[in-house]
C-alpha cells in the first residue's frame, strides 16, 4: 500500500511510522489521518499495535521512522506535554487520573495546565474561581457535578473513565485520542459513554481505539483496521464490514463477531 500524500485538510496525519520493540514490530509503515469533526475508529486484534499507535501520536513513544503532522506542523519529536499544549488530548487504556485528589481537583488541574505556567507559589488553588468555575462546569456537563468533592479513586469505574475524558476536554483540545474508553464497562456505562462521545463529535476530532464493536459502528465515521502494526484497510463502517481481508484477519470468518 502506498502512502497517500499528506493532505492539508487533515487535522492529524501520520505517515510511514515504524516502531520496533526488540524483535516485535509494533508499527509498520503505519499511515493514519484524522479529519476535523470526524470520529476515526481503529480496531484490530490484541497485539495489533493500537495502543502503540496512540502512544506514538500523543508522544509517549517516539517513532523509529516516519512523521506526524498536526495542524500543519510536524510534531514527531515533541514531548507529550508539548503535544498536549498544541491540542492533542488523550485517555489511557488503564484509567489515568489523580486518584488521591477530588474529582473537582482533577479537572481543575487540567484547567490550570491550560492557563499558562504554574510558577505561582502563594494563592491557594482551592479558592481559585478561575480554575474551579470552569472545572465545575465541565463536571456538570458530564453529569458528575454532584460528585465533585469525592476522591477520584473512590468514584465508580465508569465515573473514573468519564472523569478522565472530562480532564482531556478541560485542556481545550482539538483532537481526542481515546484508548478503549469503554474498557471494563457494563452495558449501561458503555451506552452512557457512547452518548457522551456522540455529543462531543461536533466540536472535537477523535481517534477512537475500541474493542466494543457496537460502540465502534455506532460512532465511527471511518474505521481503520490494524493488524501487526499495519493498517490493512480504511473505510466507512459499511465498507469495513464488507471487506474480505478484514473478515479474514479480524472479524472472524463468518463475520459473526
Amino acid at each position, binding site marked *: 500500500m502506498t502512502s497517500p500524500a499528506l493532505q492539508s485538510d487533515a487535522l492529524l496525519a501520520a505517515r510511514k511510522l515504524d516502531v520496533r520493540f526488540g524483535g516485535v514490530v509494533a508499527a509498520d509503515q503505519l499511515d493514519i489521518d484524522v479529519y476535523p469533526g470526524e470520529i476515526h475508529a481503529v480496531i484490530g486484534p490484541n497485539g495489533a499495535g493500537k495502543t502503540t499507535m496512540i502512544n506514538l501520536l*500523543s508522544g*509517549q513513544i517516539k517513532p523509529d521512522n516516519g512523521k506526524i503532522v498536526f495542524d500543519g506542523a510536524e510534531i514527531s519529536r515533541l*514531548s*507529550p*506535554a*508539548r503535544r*498536549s*499544549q498544541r491540542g492533542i*488530548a*488523550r485517555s*489511557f487504556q488503564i484509567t*489515568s*487520573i*489523580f*486518584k*488521591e*485528589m*477530588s474529582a473537582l*481537583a482533577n479537572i*481543575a*488541574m*487540567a484547567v*490550570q*495546565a*491550560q492557563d499558562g505556567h*504554574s*510558577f*505561582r*507559589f*502563594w*494563592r*491557594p*488553588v*482551592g*479558592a*481559585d474561581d478561575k480554575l474551579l468555575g470552569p472545572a465545575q462546569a465541565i463536571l456538570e456537563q458530564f453529569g458528575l457535578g454532584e460528585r465533585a*468533592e*469525592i*476522591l477520584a479513586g*473512590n468514584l465508580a469505574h465508569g465515573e473514573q473513565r468519564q472523569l478522565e475524558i472530562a*480532564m*482531556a476536554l*478541560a*485542556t481545550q483540545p482539538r483532537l481526542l485520542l481515546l484508548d478503549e474508553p469503554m474498557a471494563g464497562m457494563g452495558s449501561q456505562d458503555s451506552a452512557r459513554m457512547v452518548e457522551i462521545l456522540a455529543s462531543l463529535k461536533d466540536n472535537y476530532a477523535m481517534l477512537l481505539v475500541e474493542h466494543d464493536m457496537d460502540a465502534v459502528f455506532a460512532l465511527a465515521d471511518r474505521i481503520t483496521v490494524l493488524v501487526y502494526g499495519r493498517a490493512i484497510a480504511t473505510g466507512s463502517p459499511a465498507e469495513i464490514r464488507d471487506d474480505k481481508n478484514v473478515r479474514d484477519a479480524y472479524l472472524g470468518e463468518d463475520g459473526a463477531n
Partner: protein
Amino acid sequence: MMAGIMRHIVSVRGIVIVALLLYLLFLPYYASAFYINVFTRILIWAIAGISLNLILGYGGMISFGHAAYLGVAAYTVLAFAEQGIYLGWVQWPVAIILAGVVSAFIGTLCLRTRGLHFIMITLAFTQMLFFFFRSLDRFRGDDGLRIKKRSEFDFGWFELDLMDRLTFYYLVFAILLVALLFVFRLVNSRFGAVLRGSMSNDVRMQAIGVSTYGYRLTAFVIAGMMCGVAGLLMANMERFVSPAVLSWTVSGDLIFIVVLGGSGRLFGPVFGALVFFLLIEFLGDITIHWQLIMGPFLVLVVLFARTGIDGALNGLDHKLRVRFGRGQSGDEEMSS
C-alpha cells in the same frame, strides 16, 4: 472558610496541634536549661524535616541525601566564623544561597531519574560531599571544629543576642512557624498542585500539557535552601561543625522523621521530630542499646501506620465524626 477552619481545630488532631504549639510557646516557663536545648535541637530537626517533606511528602522525591544541605550551610557558617565574620546578615544569606546552589546542581542531575535510582544517586552525591568535607584539613577533617560564638544580628537600636538560650529558642520556634506557613501556602498553590500532581501521576501531568521537571527542580531547590536554614541553625546551636552533620545516617533520620510524623502532611515532621528525639532521650535513659528498640519501632510504624502520627490523628477524627453522625464520605483534604 471559617467553618472549615473551625472544623479542623475542633478535632483531636486540631487540639493536639494547638496544645503542642502552646506548649512550645511557653516551654521556658517549665523546662530546664537542658530541656530548652533539647527542644531547640528538635525544632531545628523539624525544620529540616519540613523541608524534606516538601519534596518527599508532596512531590514523591525520596531524597536520601538531604543532609547535604545541612552540611553545606553549617560549613558556610563555620567558614565565616574561622575568618572572624559573625555577622548574621553575611553568614545566613550566603549559607542559604550555597545550599540552594548545591541543591540545584544535585537536583538537575538526580531528577532525571526516578524511584530507587533517585534514592541512590542523591545518597551518592551527599557521600561525595561528606568525604569532601572530611578531607579538608582546614576544618580539621573528621574531628570538626568549634565555633566561638553564634551569629550576630545588630539592628542598631537593638541587638539580637543568639548566645542567649531563650532568644535562640524563640528565634528557632519563629522560623519553624514561618516554615510551616510557607510550606502550607506553597503546597496549596498552583505550583504545589503541579508538584502533588506529578507525585500522584506524572504521566497524566504530561498528558494534560505540563512538563513537571522544572517544577520538581524548583521544589528541590526550595527544599534545599530551607534545609540550609536548618543547617545554619544547627551550626549555631552546637557551635560545632564536623562531617557527621552530612553523614548518611542523618539523611536517613530525616526520612524517618518525615515518615513517622506522616509524609505529605503539614505538621507531620514536627510530630516526627518530637517523637523521634524524645523516644531516643527516653530509651537512652533505659538502655544503651536503645537502637534495638528503635529499629523494630520504625519497622512497625512503616508497616502499620503508613500515614504516620498526623495521619493516625486524622483517622481518629474521621472515626469520631462517623460515629457522631457528622461523617463525610472520605473526602478529607489531601494537603492540610
